[in-house]
Structures are given as structure tokens and as C-alpha cells.
């Protein structure tokens, strides 16, 4: 599974600031330069806090907040995703998507962790992703507004591009995902969408003025001509 798991940072600039959380909740501040998709939510470019929910029963529930942590965008069920070698910085894996669509986050690794969080998508979206990527995608009865307690016991399966549900163990390859190189780009704020604000003055007033002036001039010429003929 996920042989063609798309690579990191394809087109999406991700900046991970030095982690300021503790090892317990894996709190991480991420800056995305482009919109990204997480289960049930599209996050516009910007800064977000990813951290594990405060649950002893399940350490694979991720919560996504705004940078000030006063607004929660999603509570995401995940399963462990193993890597042979830990990355020394935050690692985000994206599913391969069409160029005109936001990259969908497949998994999130805390720096130094061998086990990351592979996100479980709602059923309808998981099927769409499976058909786009031609790979099974984890799914379950999840919505981004559920509480950690509600998600703790949610069963997880994988949906294939043919819309068949299979056990997660069947879907996941025994070999772990190949190590991928993580590069931290230069610090940057998410870029503004345009270099200038849109031009919202149509040429119609100028054209109308031209028309009125032309008609006025035509009337003047006609008057002069008839006056002198």
C-alpha cells in the first residue's frame, strides 16, 4: 500500500517551527503556504497547531487548531504509521493529488518519532481519494467535529478504489514507507495570493464618457456645418 505515496512538499511549502510542545501531546506549529486537506476540512494557507488529544485510551487522535489555539478546526482519528528511521524534523506525507486540488495530508510525524499519525478520512472522501490515488485509503465513521471520546472506539478499515472495504492489515504493506528527505525551507510567511489587490475598475465609465463626448462633438460639428452652409 502507498507505494506511490506522494512525496513530501510537492508544491506545498511546509514550515515547521521548533516544537514548543512536550513529548506527550506532540504539539507542533505548522505553516502551510498553500491550502491542504485534512479529513473533512480544507485548511487555507496559514499557521496551524497539530497536537494529540489528551486521551489515555487512544494516542492516535490528532487535533488541529489555529495558531492561537482558540479555535479547533478538526479532531482526526489516526492509526500508527511506522518509519524505519526517525526524521529529525517534523515530517508530513501527502497523498498524490491533481495539481488543481489541495494536497491531502496522509500522515504526520513528530520529530524523532518512529511512529507517526496516519489520518483516517470520512468514507465518501476516502473513496474519492482512493480512486484518485489508486490505493486503499483508511476510513471510518468519522467527522471532524467529533470529540476524542467519540473517536476512541471507532473501527478503522481501508477502502479500495473499487469501493471495497478491507482490513487495515490487508491494505498496509509489511514494508514501511521509504525514508524521505525532509528539508526545512527558509522561514516565510504564507504568501499573499496576489501581488496587488484585484483591479476592480471596469473601462465602462471611460467608454461611456468617450461615447457621450463623441456624440457631443458630432452635434457640434453638425451645428457648425448647418450654420455656415
Amino acid at each position, binding site marked *: 500500500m502507498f507505494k506511490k505515496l506522494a512525496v513530501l512538499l510537492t508544491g506545498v511549502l511546509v514550515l515547521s517551527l521548533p516544537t514548543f510542545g512536550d513529548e506527550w501531546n506532540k504539539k507542533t506549529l505548522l505553516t502551510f503556504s498553500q491550502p491542504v486537506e485534512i479529513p473533512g476540512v480544507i485548511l487555507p494557507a496559514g499557521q496551524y497547531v497539530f497536537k494529540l488529544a489528551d486521551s489515555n485510551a487512544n494516542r492516535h487522535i490528532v487535533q488541529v487548531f489555529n495558531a492561537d489555539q482558540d479555535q479547533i478546526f478538526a479532531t482526526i482519528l489516526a492509526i500508527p504509521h511506522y518509519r524505519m528511521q526517525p526524521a529529525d524534523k517534523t515530517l508530513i506525507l501527502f497523498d498524490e493529488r491533481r495539481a488543481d486540488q489541495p494536497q491531502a495530508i496522509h500522515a504526520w510525524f513528530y520529530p524523532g518519532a518512529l511512529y507517526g499519525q496516519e489520518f483516517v478520512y470520512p468514507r*465518501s472522501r476516502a473513496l474519492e481519494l482512493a480512486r484518485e490515488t489508486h490505493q486503499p485509503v483508511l476510513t471510518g465513521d468519522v467527522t471532524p467535529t467529533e470529540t476524542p471520546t467519540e473517536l476512541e472506539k471507532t473501527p478503522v478499515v481501508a477502502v479500495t478504489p473499487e469501493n471495497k472495504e478491507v482490513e487495515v492489515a490487508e491494505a498496509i504493506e509489511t514494508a514501511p514507507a521509504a525514508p524521505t528527505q525532509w528539508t526545512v525551507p527558509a522561514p516565510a510567511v504564507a504568501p*499573499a495570493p496576489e501581488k496587488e*489587490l484585484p483591479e476592480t475598475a471596469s473601462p465602462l465609465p471611460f467608454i461611456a464618457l468617450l461615447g457621450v463626448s463623441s456624440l457631443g462633438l458630432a452635434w457640434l460639428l453638425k451645428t457648425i456645418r448647418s450654420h455656415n452652409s
Partner: protein
Amino acid sequence: MKVTVHWSSSRKHRIFRYAHITFAILGCVALGACAFAYFNAGVFQAYERWHFEKALLARPRGLAGPSPVAPVQSLRLAVKEGVLLGRIEVPRLALSVMVTEGIKPRNLRLAAGHIPGTAFPDEPGNVGIAGHRDMFFRRLREIRQGDIITFTTLAGSPEYSVEWTRVVKPKDIDVLDVSSQPVLTLVTCYPFYYVGPAPERFIVRARLIGRAGSS
């Protein structure tokens, strides 16, 4: 003032005649082009409004939810360049304009446009909408703090309350910066009565206060 022209030949007479006809034609064509542009935009708005109302009635109930998070059927995934996104209304100003995706000149001739790169109305963040000040957003000159703006889409109808208005330079793109709070930013040219490319932009910033018709 008395204008006296001495016609020395019929040639000058003909020149005046041709100039008169030329300017008359030019004037008619220019005014006709304006009338056509307004007519075309009016027809587009009326058709898209009718079409949108039908789609609203036919939409699944689940798409309009009170949740601050986007539904699974996200607008970003559903809407393409030039496609209808929704309708913006300011009831106090009797302003109602259809919004399409993108700000290419053709889009803005027919409707207001969602500024690419900004959030969509079903997402958290800063939703940027641009419109011509001499067509759809003329009435924004009368908007004031506290006015309610409704952005009706097939994925919900967020309601915003105007926080402030501001006149900025075209390069002041920070008004479209990502916001941790859900806000709406309307952009149009300023001054409102100006012939030619306007030197400034009029900005309306509104914050989300709820979602209409989400029950």
C-alpha cells in the same frame, strides 16, 4: 462666443460632414457597448440567480451545517474557475450579487469574483471577494459598521458583520492575509466615481457571526 467659419471649398465642407458622421457613429458604438455590457451582466446575474435558487432548493440538507469546519463536500473541491460560487447580499443596501470563482476580467464583468488563494466561505480564514465599483459594488460606498453581509453558498450561508472599512493602496495586499478567525474581505476600486484605473482600493472587512438557514 460666436464661431465663424469661412468655407473656401466644398472639400472642407465634406471633411466636416465626414467628421460629424464619424463621431456620431463612434459615440453610438461606445454607448452601445456600455449598454450591452450592462445588459449582458444583468442577464448573467438573473440567469445565475435563477439557477442558484433551484440548486439551493435541490441541495441535500446535510450540506448546510452550523459547524465552523467545512463539510466534506468542500466548495474548494467543487468549484472551478469561472463557476458560480454563491451570492453575496447586504440587505440594508439592497445589494445582491452573484459570485463566481476567480477574478479574471471576464469574470468581473459578469459578477463579483472570489479571489484565488483566499479561503472559501465554508473554510476558516479570510474570504476575499472582488467586484467592480461601477457595476456590482457601487453601493458599498454606503456600507457602515454593523451591516450584515450574507454569503449564500451550497455549502452553507455564513453571515458576517462589518467591522471596518478602509481605503488602501493596490499594493496593500495584507488585507487578504490569512486570518485565524473567519472573516470576509470585500475589495473594490476607489474613488467610486472615477474614470480610468482607480488609484486606490476600498476594503470592507466583516467577521463571521453565524450561519443563516443552517437549521
